[in-house]
């Protein structure tokens, strides 16, 4: 979840009237913001990824103005045209076809610059999906001589990239700069690259990689040109509308720019509000509160939306920067915010039904109780296990890709190796030690089929200086008799865990349902155990 830090005073500078620190801390959670950390004069909040407009103190302050100070909603904007025109070369169509932009006049300060860049980063990471959806370029417009050209260049093309002093070729930028290494994978071709430049040939940016140094923003910037390039238009326009509205929250005057494609022209940003319909009946159905139309409209005003009754519904105008409103339920949630979630009183649920446990859990409980009664201690190990530990005992291990905890790289096919590890970590504890686990194991249903069978196994181990086959066989018999299992038998068998000649298969209805025996000294020594051990592993479903 994205986070934002700012001083209380900074927030107050955007508020309609000054609020105390306590009041601010009270209001923020009602807007859906999570307070992470508070110091004397600063606060760190976490905001939901569906509200990128909360990515600046000005954006948050604006929301407080609507919500707490009842500031009149502002969702429609008549933007003047700037003189900026962008010409899109037809060659860029196959590589990174879309570009939109805007021009704004704003007196920057060090703080404003920092906050704008932070918002840009949050947009890139969040709805930009790490620049996969779009890339934003912020430029000091005073350095630009329009018109602007969105064109292509070859790998040898050179320019001075941001924070550098010498020209570098595109090739060098991709292989040597931090941004180059991070984002090179987003480029679709290796021969031609998108470049944004002005009429003097100055490079504004090489999207989505890095800006040119010539148009770098500073605290002295007074006019800004924003470009957003993308492979799809939708999310780029979302980001541009958030930037446009935020700049206006900072007090900027925003102008449109003209984008000239091959055969069409666009004027951006397009901040036309969206329209959606809301039913009071559905508000009651979901939130459980009955509101009259004018109450709904009042609530919507508090979240900067304008509603008006139309037939039996409410027609809602939604500001363009609200990219999260997909369905009527999103509007219903907004009504909830406007009404105040802290005002929703709980209601008792009157849905009568009998509790119904799963049958298999009763059996598992019986097994657990029997083994506890026999003096066994329940352990819980992970379903993810180490390939090398599992390999001697299971074919067709199911592997997971790139686990962060590298030793846990397969789904276990058998539990006994993990129980041996439990014993290995308890060699300083008093003996005898008797442990068990009832848990899942995984295997492929059959060799060619990519379908996985999940089974429940009962595994137990006993270890002490006189641990034996006899002892564990007695336990297995006691357990099966306790559960009322009939028709079972034992047959001499071989299994890699167990000492040859001291291993039995547990058979039921002519099917092998488990194994039992004395653990081979190879594994005992390998795990650093000094006492003999015996154990079993039985499939639960086959046993019942």
């Amino acid at each position, binding site marked *: 979840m994205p986070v934002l830090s700012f001083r209380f005073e900074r927030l107050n500078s955007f508020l309609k009237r000054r609020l105390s620190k306590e009041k601010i801390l009270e209001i923020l959670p009602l807007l859906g913001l999570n307070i992470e950390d508070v110091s004397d004069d600063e606060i760190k909040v976490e905001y939901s990824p569906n509200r990128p407009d909360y990515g600046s103190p000005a954006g948050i302050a604006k929301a407080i103005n609507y919500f707490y100070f009842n500031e009149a909603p502002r969702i429609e904007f008549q933007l003047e045209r700037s003189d900026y025109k962008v010409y899109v070369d037809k060659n860029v169509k196959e590589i990174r076809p879309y570009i939109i932009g805007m021009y704004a006049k704003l007196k920057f300060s060090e703080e404003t610059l920092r906050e704008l860049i932070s918002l840009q980063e949050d947009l890139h990471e969040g709805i930009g999906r790490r620049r996969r959806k779009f890339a934003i370029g912020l430029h000091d417009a005073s350095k630009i001589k329009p018109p602007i050209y969105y064109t292509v260049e070859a790998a040898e093309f050179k320019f001075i990239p941001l924070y550098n002093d010498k020209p570098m070729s595109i090739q060098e930028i991709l292989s040597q700069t931090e941004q180059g290494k991070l984002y090179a994978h987003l480029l679709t071709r290796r021969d031609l690259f998108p470049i944004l430049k002005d009429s003097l040939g100055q490079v504004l940016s090489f999207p989505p990689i890095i800006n040119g140094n010539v148009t770098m923003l500073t605290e002295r910037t007074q006019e800004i040109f924003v470009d957003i390039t993308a492979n799809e238009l939708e999310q780029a326009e979302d980001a541009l509308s958030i930037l446009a509205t935020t700049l206006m929250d900072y007090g900027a005057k925003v102008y449109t720019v003209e984008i000239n494609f091959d055969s069409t022209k666009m004027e951006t940003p397009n901040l036309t509000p969206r329209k959606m319909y809301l039913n009071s009946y559905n508000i009651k159905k979901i939130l459980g509160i009955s509101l009259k139309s004018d109450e709904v409209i009042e609530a919507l005003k508090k979240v900067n939306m304008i509603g008006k009754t139309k037939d039996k519904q409410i027609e809602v105008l939604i500001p363009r920067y609200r990219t999260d409103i997909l369905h009527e339920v999103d509007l219903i949630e907004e009504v909830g915010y406007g009404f105040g979630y802290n005002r929703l*009183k709980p209601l008792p649920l009157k849905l009568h039904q009998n*509790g119904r446990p799963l049958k298999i859990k009763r059996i598992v409980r019986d097994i657990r109780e029997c083994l506890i009664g026999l003096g066994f201690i329940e352990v819980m190990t992970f379903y993810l296990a180490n390939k090398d530990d599992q390999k001697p005992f299971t074919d067709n291990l199911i592997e997971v890709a790139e686990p962060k905890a590298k030793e846990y790289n397969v789904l276990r096919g058998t539990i006994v190796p993990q129980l041996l590890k439990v014993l290995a970590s308890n060699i300083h504890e008093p003996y005898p030690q008797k442990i068990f686990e009832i848990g899942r194991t995984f295997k492929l249903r059959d060799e060619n089929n990519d379908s996985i069978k999940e089974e429940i196994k009962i595994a137990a181990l006993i270890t002490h200086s006189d641990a034996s086959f006899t002892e564990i066989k007695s336990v297995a018999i006691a357990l099966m008799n306790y559960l009322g299992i009939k028709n079972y038998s034992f047959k001499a068998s071989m299994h890699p865990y167990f000492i040859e000649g001291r291993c039995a298969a547990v058979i039921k209805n002519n099917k092998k349902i488990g194994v039992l025996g004395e653990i081979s000294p190879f594994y005992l020594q390998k795990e650093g155990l000094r006492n003999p051990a015996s154990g079993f592993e039985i499939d639960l479903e086959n046993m019942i």
Partner: protein
Amino acid sequence: MSAVLHPIEVEIIKVLRGEDYIALNEIAKQTKLSLDQIRRGVEWLKEKNLVEVKEETSSFIELDTLGEKSVAEGLPERRIHNFLNKRGGREEIEIVRKEIGMDEKEFSAAVGFAIKNGLVKVIKENGKILVEALPYSKSLDTEVLLNKIFSLKQIEINQLSSYERKILNELVKRPNYIKIKEVKQITVKAKNDAFKLLEEYYKANYVEKLTPELIVSGMWRNVKLRPYDIEGTVPVIYPGRKHPVQDFIDQVREIFLNFGFEEIEGQIVLSSFWNFDALFIPQDHPAREMQDTFYLKDMVDKSVRKNPLVETIRNIHENGGNTGSRGWNYKWSIAEAEKMVLRTHTTPITLQYLYKNRPLSAKVFSIDKVFRNENLDSRHLFEFHQYEGIVTGKNVTLRHLIGILSSFYKELGFKKVKFWPTYFPYTEPSMEAVAYVDKIGRWLELCGMGVFRPEVVEPAGIKNPVLAWGGGLERLILLAYDVDDIRFLYENSLGWLRSVNYARTKF
């Protein structure tokens, strides 16, 4: 109290000789008994009036810090005398003090002792005060005593001569020279009756074991069974036990069942289709990346392509389908949907239940394992438990969800619970429950909750609102058991498993 001697008493009496009082430590040296056993034995013997017990306090003297220092460097008065001798016999008093390096208080006391013992004299000459060394060659009595204590390390005061005691009193007045330790010693003397009983004990010929033969034959009437030291330690044994995590799961399970919920369970390995897509989580959502989710290597769920539901879900993602939603506006890929994952939450299982049963009303829960691709550290596991509940029915609203969760968490032991709005991709509205926990003095996140989005439930044919909530179990267990490191819960340390008390009143 019986007149029969206990084996411990027997051992003690054997050691006691008629006339002397013997200290407990001595008895310990001569028998195989521990001091603890001896103390007990002596108490019993005292009660039976078989011994006399004296408690004596002895005083022992030892050197304190300055006492030790003066053995090494010389008493202050001696140092003054030595200094003056090196200086030619006399010097200004202030210079002497400075050069020896004593503060005024220590120095004037030292000069006092030096004069008293005849080491120096003080004279006035030409308006200056001088100190002059007197001829003195033997050791001071105080020096002799200090050295004696030093070599013996500790002396009982009674062992000193009366003259030495006089010197001691002088030394004791000087702070930090002497330490006096009072030690209580218990000494025991046997009475004659004790020896009589000892003889009887040997004659009695006790029997150790009550055997079946003795019982059946009636011969038990003719033998004496040896009495036991009932306070003695016995072997530690451990009952078989449920794992504390399982115990906690069972408690939460009981709450759900008492609330009338139906228990369900499902597969751990799922297609992305069920784990993400059917829950309206877009394919480019960060949680779907390998950084956060376990994908199975080289495996796809072949059944996905055959599932007719796929087209419906595709449309919903791309443009909202028939749900009245705008959708996510991107190109949905079936290749992404058929990838297999270890489920990241139990929600797909409840969703599958809704698809299968299309209930008009239902209350369903599960508590089971979920997986996130994380490294193991004190706050994260890659494999942990989630509890989840859903309620659906006519006239079931968000307010009912707040209501049921207030009750649910109250049962669990949380008294102060609040609900805040938040965001999840598959519920709208969404909230989170937080509780104030006195134990840790702050608010703790308990769970996420909300009403399932229409994009999720309409393809399943559900028309009534579906309320849902879910949270991680381990963080509650850590709180209940006062454990800091989450990995410890699965370390399976027998020391802990054998001794931990199950958390019954938790928070």
